[in-house]
């Protein structure tokens, strides 16, 4: 099942729509989002993914992370708070 998400990469200028699968890992969604933003922001090797104020486990799936359609997720550099 597809879960559309609003994705924001730190350093980017707009929010992008990413179509994730509910059984896809957060790490995979983050990679998808970084690829989508690559024309404006160079992909980072190490990132954290945030949603609803919490850091998501990169190995967890989209559904296990509690994400639902049109949630916002943020991909930020691993070093930043």
């Amino acid at each position, binding site marked *: 099942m597809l879960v559309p998400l609003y994705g924001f990469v730190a350093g980017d200028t707009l929010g992008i729509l990413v179509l994730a699968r509910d059984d896809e890992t957060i790490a995979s969604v983050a990679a998808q989002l970084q690829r989508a933003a690559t024309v*404006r922001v160079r992909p980072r090797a190490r990132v954290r993914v945030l949603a609803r104020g919490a850091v998501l486990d990169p190995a967890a799936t989209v559904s296990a992370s509690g994400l639902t359609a049109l949630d916002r997720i943020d991909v930020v550099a691993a070093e930043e708070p």
Partner: protein
Amino acid sequence: MKLARDDWFDLARKLDWTYGYVGERDVFPEEASGAPWLPHDAWAGWNEPFRTTYAEYVATQAQKEAAVHAVREAVGRPEDFQRHDRRWLSALKLHAATLPLAEFAATIGNLRAARFARDSAWRGTALLGALDELRHTQLPLVALHDLVKWDRQFDWTHRFYHSNDWVAIAARHVMDEMLLAADPIELAVATNFVFETGFTNLQFVGLSAMAHDVGDRMFETMLKSIQTDEARHAQIGPTVVRTLVAHDRARAQRLVDKWFWRHWLLFAVVTGFAMDYLTPLAHRRSSFKEFMQEWVLDQFARSLADVGLELPAYWPTFLESLDWYHHMVYASAYTYRATVWFDLAVPGPDERAWLRAKYPASWDALDPVWERVAERWRESGPGVEWYTHGTTPVGFCSLCQLVLCGGTPARNTAQVVDRDGRRYIFCSEPCRTIFEAEPERYAEHRDVVKQILAGEAPANLLELLRTHFGLTQDEWGKDVAGGDYPWLRR
């Protein structure tokens, strides 16, 4: 003995009589005339200080038309436009698409006021205002029609409002509400008071200074001539607002707050792009922010105080956005340029130095995006448009319908909100506030994302812009230089 104008014109303006055989509410139903519905006496003091008789109007407008068409004869031919920088032509195409047909919607809004406004002088002024807006529709349509044969992107002067391009959706969202669905009171606040005494001056007079410096006499003349009409009919605004403040200050404040923000976003895109990115660097007299300071900030706060209103609660957010918003949208639009009808340019080292000097608070966070775009062009070489172009759909604000560019690159202010079983996203807090104040007005609208998710629009970007936005390959936006900039070559 000839009467001086001052001796007779007041009588000719104030023509209402007390109705004996029908009720006032029959002639002016609240639904058509607007809220709050006040007794006629409350509007009797309505006074437009900048007045014109019909005879003067006809004579003066004829002179204005003759002057503009004379300039068009001299310097408004296709060959005159062809010598301009391609970036400047993009600024013209952006203006041409977004403004002329909106003027026709303003004609309709003014005709409603000409029938349903509560004072005869107001109705008379609105009638002439409707004629002004008809002029503002036809003049650019005529002036730019000649260019279509030479450059198909100019066809969007007419086509834009009939299309489902994402910018057209955003433009219709604000123009339909402000001009077509608004009663005369809201029209006076939204259009005459907020739009016409601040923002249109920015685009029509501020931008005319750039046109002058670029050497585009046709556009310069046309813009200023149009705005001389506006200076007159905008005076409907303050007098309506004063009466409204006296009877329902809260409503007056809410209307001003809503419309100032909505206009800000629209003009940040249209004028911000033109002044800071599409006017060739050598001809930029001032930055967009400096023009905003001159045309909007300096006088808006003062005129609000003058009618007894306060600055909107979001004012600090607005002030901060002067350093960010149009830059965020431009960088986004550049990397999605095929979704619009005009070409965009990459700011080179000189442009970026100018932008850094004009926007010291924000440019550090924005420059890396252009560094990345330049890097991508170097990797691909010129001519490879797709390598610096986004391929995925993007989000749009549930209120303003624009891309989600609020805040800064480090902290985007987009927020997801659930209400009544539906999920919305807003680019900023003011957009959210406006939506939640009148959800019944906005809740049903299905934006591009919702259409894609419902299978009504393609998710593939190329298909989206061909079939849904209505752009053909020779019309959709490209890099002005095809990525072949002197400063990119090593």
